[in-house]
Structure formats: structure tokens, C-alpha cells
């Protein structure tokens, strides 16, 4: 015998739809505050850039709300997505770093900071920080390093990574321009891949600016201003460039 169960969502009279469970109207603890971030590593530097627009839906909350932070020990950190969680993550990282200094009295290595961030993120595996996180710094050999994280802490060291609202617009551009994907050596007549090489700071800054002006054209949550933080062995410098405010 077949057990016929009437599907309440199809061709039913409302009076027949008996609610077996209470209707829940749950509070949504997350929102998306837009914006996008981008990190690129060079031979002796790393940059981490973010636009300064802060949004809720179609509203522009602020035209200048920085989201890339120099967190100390020559490291840059940015978490992009839900701004409440992003702020909490950066704060928590700052606290842990302070304690590390108290306890060990030495600088925290970028690779160790990356592992710490994994634990901060995975620690909230079942109520995650809704953010895409990028950490920039220098490694033990003084080479630029970028670490990128998913919301629950899975991470990887990379040469470059875009995160946030316009990540899908910027990342393919970066694949091509930083990692030379689909580029051939012009001498070889299309038989040899273009050799990988480190980009200079000037080249990287130009790439970052191009990436953000283009993302601003095509993504409504990106714009207003571009803040680029550059980390070298001598410390952190900040650059600001206006973006379109429409």
C-alpha cells in the first residue's frame, strides 16, 4: 500500500494547511556590509588594500570606514563581510597578540599569526564569523607573504588573494597579472608559459589601483576610497586614493 502524503505547498486550500510546528520568525544575527579587500605579496614587501565604503543593502553607511589594520609586529589584517564579526576578530587578534608579547617577549611570526587566526575562526565553527580574512606580512626570510582564510578557518599561504564582495571580479584579473595564468612567453611563439617573477612595488600598486577602479565600476558595494597598506622590513606605510562615489 502506498502512503500518500498530501503536499501542502501545492494546490491546497489554506484551511487544510495545519501548522504542526510553531512558525518561527528568527532574528538574523548576520548582515553583509559589502566592501572588498585585496592582498599581494612581493619579494620584500606585501600590500593589503581595501575600499573604504561601508554598506547595508542599498544604503551607503559611510564613505570612509577603514577595514585594513596594521595590527603590530609588521602585520596587516583585514576581515571582510559582516562588519560586526570583522571588528570582533581583529580586536580578538589584537588581544591575543598583546598576551603573546607579555608571555614570550618577542615578535609573533606571520606564519604563527596565521595559525592563531585559524584557531580564532575555527573556535566559532558552529556560529561562524561571517568574514573572508586576509593576513599580510613578511616571512622568516623577509619575503612578502599573504595568508587567506575562509569563514571557519581553513587557510593557505598565497602570492595574492582578493576577498569580499568583488572578489570574484578581481581574482581572475590577479590570476592573469600576478601568477601569469594563460600568459605565454612572447618569444616562444605560444609554446612556453611565461616565466613567473616577483612584481615590483610600483607594478603591484598599479595593479591594486586598476583592480579597485574596475571593481568600483561593476560592483555597487565597492567605491568611495581605496586605502592601501604596504608592509616592508622598515614598517607600515598607508596610501589613500579616491574612488568613484556613485
Amino acid at each position: 500500500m502506498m502512503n500518500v502524503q498530501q503536499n501542502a505547498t501545492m494546490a491546497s486550500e489554506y484551511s487544510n494547511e495545519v501548522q504542526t510546528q510553531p512558525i518561527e520568525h528568527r532574528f538574523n544575527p548576520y548582515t553583509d556590509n559589502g566592501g572588498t579587500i585585496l592582498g599581494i605579496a612581493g619579494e620584500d614587501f606585501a600590500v593589503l588594500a581595501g575600499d573604504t565604503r561601508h554598506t547595508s543593502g542599498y544604503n551607503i553607511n559611510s564613505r570612509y570606514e577603514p577595514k585594513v589594520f596594521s595590527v603590530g609586529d609588521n602585520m596587516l589584517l583585514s576581515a571582510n563581510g559582516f562588519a560586526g564579526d570583522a571588528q570582533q576578530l581583529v580586536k580578538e587578534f589584537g588581544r591575543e597578540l598583546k598576551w603573546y608579547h607579555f608571555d614570550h617577549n618577542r615578535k609573533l611570526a606571520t606564519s604563527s599569526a596565521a595559525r592563531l587566526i585559524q584557531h580564532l575562526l575555527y573556535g566559532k565553527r558552529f556560529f561562524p564569523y561571517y568574514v573572508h580574512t586576509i593576513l599580510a606580512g613578511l616571512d622568516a626570510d623577509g619575503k612578502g607573504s599573504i595568508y587567506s582564510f575562509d569563514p571557519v578557518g581553513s587557510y593557505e599561504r598565497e602570492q595574492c588573494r582578493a576577498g569580499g564582495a568583488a572578489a570574484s571580479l578581481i581574482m581572475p584579473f590577479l590570476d592573469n597579472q600576478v601568477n601569469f595564468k594563460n600568459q605565454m612567453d612572447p618569444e616562444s611563439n605560444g609554446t612556453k608559459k611565461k616565466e613567473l617573477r616577483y612584481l615590483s612595488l610600483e607594478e603591484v600598486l598599479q595593479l591594486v589601483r586598476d583592480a579597485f577602479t574596475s571593481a568600483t565600476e561593476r560592483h555597487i558595494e565597492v567605491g568611495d576610497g581605496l586605502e592601501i597598506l604596504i608592509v616592508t622590513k622598515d614598517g607600515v606605510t598607508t596610501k589613500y586614493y579616491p574612488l568613484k562615489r556613485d
Partner: protein
Amino acid sequence: MNHNPFHWGRPSDSTYGPYNQQIAHASNVNPMARQQQQSDFPTMHTQRPMMTGTSVLAIKYQDGIVIAADNMGSYGSLMKLDNVERLLKVGQDTIVGISGDLSDLQAIQRILNDLEIDESYDAGDDEDALAAGLKANHVHEYLTRIMYNRRSKMDPLWNACIVAGFDDEGKSFLKYVDLLGVAFASPTLATGFGAHLAIPLLRQRVDSEADVKKLTKADAIQLIKDCMKVLFYRDARSLDKYSMAVLSESDQKVEFHKDVKVEDMKWAFAKGIKGYGMPQL
């Protein structure tokens, strides 16, 4: 080493007593209700605001900040209260403007009052120490922590707040925080309907920190008054009576204006509107 946590064992029963199974089977259903089999409903937090206050507006000008909020408390579409003060003064020179649920507003009022009392103990009778103690940036940070922690407990304080005042260096401080713990700064801020109706008008005059330097106190006050008028015209849950605070950086003073009325309204156009409800005579 065996890396399976289930094989690590647990504190011995003989020393610590048997494991309390209720810990592993914890639920958010009220234990009393479960005992008496009354209800399978989860414990209830604020799921939606009941009594509410509408927009708060604020703008920076060359020597400070103007902030305003009307005096209405709505119960849905009913104007239940017409004398609610939604601009709270915290410490010597900080104004917190609150929109959203009014019972949660009162909870925040209590929390901030406790903070103020705590701070005043440290300062003692010293007037200068009292003035130097609790500044707007501290109040905002504290409020942001409270809002974020409550949202993380899925028990939010259903409000959007604007904190206006002076920071440690005596500079104007203007920042927003809401029920999700999202915080941001801008020279023009508005909550609720104001974000749609007033922000475009405010940004026409002040779109960046550079424009702040050009706006005089008188113009800022007039601008806020005009925006409150537009809100009264178009926001159905607003009142023509509001409170306004004017903060000036040069003398670190806060002028508080109560019972300000919306002025110079023109309702002649209303006669010509046809097509809504009863025919017009």
C-alpha cells in the same frame, strides 16, 4: 599519542562524581516548562520590536555636532506616547540618540547609567577628573560590545544608536552602532527612515570631512530642522515635536533643546491629493 579525543578519558568518577548528562543534553527550552510539559516553545527573546521610536539624525559642523530625535513612542501604527526622550546624556558631554525598541532603550539607559556611576566613583569629587573620565569614544566602544554580545546570544537589544560627543582629545566624535553590533563613523548619520530620507539631504551639504569645515553652527541647526520637517512630512511614525542637542568643540559644551517644534510647514498641497481613502470635499 592517541589523537582521538574520545580515547583521552575523563576525570574519574570516583574523584569528581558521575558526569552530569544534562550538560551534554542542554537545551534552550525553559526547564520549568519542560518539567510541566507545558510548552515545546523555545525560550523567547526579543523577536521583534514592540514600542518603537523612529529615526535619529546627526551631522558634524565646523565646531561640533548637531543631533536630533523626535519624542514619539509608537505601538505599531498607534501613537502611544508623545513625550519620550530618546536623546540620553551620558557623562558630561556625550549624547546617545536611540531608535528602535523603547524597552530596550530603557535597558541601555540603565546600563549606561551604571557605567556613569562606576566612572564617577573613580573620579570622586574632582570635577576635572569627572569631565576627563567618560568620553564619547568610551561610551561608544562600551555600547558596541554590549550590542555585539547580545546579538551573539541571539538576544539582541533591538536598537540603532548614534553616539555624539567629544573624544579624549576634545575632538568631535560621531559614530553609529546597531542591534547587530555593526559600528561605523561618518560626518552625517541617520537611523531608520532617516537613512533613506535625511541622509541624501545631509550629504548634499556635508559629504566628507572637508565639507564639515565649511558648515557653520547656524546652518547645521537649520539643516537638521529641515530634515526633521521632511521626516515629519513623509515618515508616518514621526512627530512634529523633537529634542535636539548642539555640541560645540571650542567650549566643550552641550546645549540641549527640548520640545522643539517643526516650523513653516506647508500643507496646502494636501487639498489637491485625490485617490486615497474618502473622497475629498
